[in-house]
């Protein structure tokens, strides 16, 4: 392989690495919102799911660019094998290996999602849990091997990403909707057929589930009885 190097390749590798971390963060936060059934009023739940899928595709493109540029840049001796096999890089063996592990985990999550209809749902779900691990290894990889990792702005970005994902973990665990509590309100996209008046009271949390349940029962009664005051007035 000819020695191909240019400062721009190295700049691209650094920039796409940082952007990839931000995109992975956004993907994980959106996935958490889907799993905890956020949405239904202002934004549809299916829309959050679609944005989650789309941004994950964009982050895959950025990560692919990051990896390809790093390999073809001969400024650092990272071979093609190091893309998928950890601990084969002569340059910064451990940090690059952690990045390789992150890429492998992300490939597993991606491929299992592409073949989601062909595999068991529980298998897909198990593999999808690995995306948390993928983010952790990507963040550690960026912190250990990033050229800009110890600059102020880069540390702020990394800490922001880690904070967001940690908040997602807490949200995912604490706000996990109990079964049958995840009712959706009407999306503004669903044309008003059989619209329910209590749409605004729908929430994700478990605390209000009883209140929601009783209020959502109301529209099932065909016609609300007129208030008593009105009945009294009619009497002679």
């Amino acid at each position, binding site marked *: 392989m000819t020695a191909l190097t240019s400062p721009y390749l190295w700049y691209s590798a650094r920039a796409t690495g940082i952007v990839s971390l931000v995109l992975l963060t956004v993907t994980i936060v959106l996935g958490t919102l*889907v799993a905890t*059934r956020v949405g*239904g009023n202002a934004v*549809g*739940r*299916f829309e959050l*799911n*679609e944005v989650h899928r789309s941004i994950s595709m964009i982050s895959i493109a950025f990560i692919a660019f990051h990896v390809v540029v790093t390999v073809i840049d001969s400024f650092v001796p990272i071979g093609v094998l190091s893309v998928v096999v950890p601990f084969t890089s002569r340059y910064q063996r451990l940090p690059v290996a952690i990045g390789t592990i992150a890429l492998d985990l992300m490939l597993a999550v991606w491929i299992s999602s592409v073949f*989601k*209809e062909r595999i068991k*749902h529980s298998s897909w779900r198990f593999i999808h849990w690995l995306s948390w691990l993928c983010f952790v290894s990507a963040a550690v990889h960026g912190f250990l091997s990033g050229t800009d990792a110890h600059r102020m702005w880069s540390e702020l970005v990394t800490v922001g990403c880690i904070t967001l994902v940690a908040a997602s973990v807490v949200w995912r665990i604490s706000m996990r909707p109990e*079964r*049958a*509590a*995840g*009712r*959706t309100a*009407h*999306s503004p*996209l*669903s*044309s008003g*057929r*059989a619209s329910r008046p209590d749409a605004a009271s729908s929430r994700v949390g478990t605390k209000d589930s009883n209140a929601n*349940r009783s209020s*959502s*029962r109301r529209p*099932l009664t065909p016609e609300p009885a007129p208030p008593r005051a009105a009945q009294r007035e009619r009497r002679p």
Partner: protein
Amino acid sequence: MGVRRRTESLRLRVDPIMCDGYGHCRELAPELVTLDEWGYPILSEQTFVATRKDLIHSAQLAVRGCPRQALWLEQFGPRN
């Protein structure tokens, strides 16, 4: 899937074991799905013919968009 004959009829079906009440199907196919008071789907019992492209499109969106993959589009033979 294959070729759909004009006389074929279709129906959206749900696997109630897989369904977890995410409610995406209600948003994606409001003309075929209503929700019960716990957020689980009540699918339209009515079959529709293969010429209703709009309903097929909605149903396919719902099948694709289900996070639990609990939906499928059932096809019947020609009605007689």
